[in-house]
């Protein structure tokens, strides 16, 4: 009965002290939601900057390798804020929302977007240093950048729709 093990675990998480305190708080909950938005903005914003640079839309005179090096610390800070606040917000509402279609969709999209990040950093980024300033990046890199833009937009959209389903 793996389903009941999962639902028992979710129940235990939901009823544990910290998630309960957050759920019943007057201020902490909206504060953590705000941190979540700031984290998402920092992470998705800097990722979009790199993607748009690879696609030749912004920072045209700067090579993507330089852009990645410049913004990656902010991407990581945003990721840390988003994952910590997101975990807290999920735990506080877990039993009510774990069956939510858009929450599940968001987790699947996060997984795919995360795999795209891993692919970028294990393959594209290794060759990125050698890219010429005058020749457009390879089609595989541009496809990955376009997919990244789309995936993060969909992650954010799915997250937003949790509350409307």
């Amino acid at each position, binding site marked *: 009965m793996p389903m009941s093990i999962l639902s028992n675990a979710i129940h235990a998480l939901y009823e544990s002290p910290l998630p309960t305190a957050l759920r019943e*708080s*007057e201020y902490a*909950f909206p504060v953590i939601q705000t941190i979540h938005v700031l984290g998402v903005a920092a992470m998705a914003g800097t990722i979009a900057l790199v993607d748009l640079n690879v696609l030749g839309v912004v920072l045209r005179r700067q090579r993507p390798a330089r852009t990645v090096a410049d913004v990656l610390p902010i991407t990581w800070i945003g990721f840390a804020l988003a994952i910590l606040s997101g975990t807290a917000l999920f735990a506080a509402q877990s039993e009510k929302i774990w069956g939510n279609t858009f929450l599940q969709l968001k987790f699947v999209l996060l997984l795919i977007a995360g795999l795209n990040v891993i692919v970028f950093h294990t393959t594209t980024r290794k060759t990125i240093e050698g890219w010429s300033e005058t020749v457009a990046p390879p089609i595989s890199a541009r496809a990955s950048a376009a997919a990244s833009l789309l995936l993060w937009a969909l992650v954010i959209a799915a997250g937003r729709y949790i509350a409307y389903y």
Partner: protein
Amino acid sequence: MKVRIGLGIAGAIALALAVPAQAHHSFSAMFDSAKPVRLVGKLTKIEWTNPHSYFYVEVKNSRGELVNWACEGAGPGALSRRGFKKGDIKLGDTLIVDGYLAKSGAKIVDARRVTLPDGRVVNGGTPGDGGPGDPTAAPAGKAG
């Protein structure tokens, strides 16, 4: 192509900015403003929770059977600011809830107006949800 990417980014940014509203879903996403209802019943369960609070009241239906209804209200912060504290109600209290039925037909109402056991009438609605008389921290008043 570039325009489309630009729009995608603008959309993503707009969505990211809209995230604080996750504290509450809109009224019309769930409830029907054309179906007002008054529930009078004993309080069976309290969920003093973000992003919405829930009060469960046991109401007798037309066949004389007791039915448990969920009444959805604003979160703890908004309710407290209107003078409605968690300690103001306890299980077994009789509440009068004026609200709106769910579009889905589920036994859940949007608790727009809650009459507490001490006679105070509080606005239970979620601030900014666009529902009837959308409140922004309306103060608690005396009934009658």
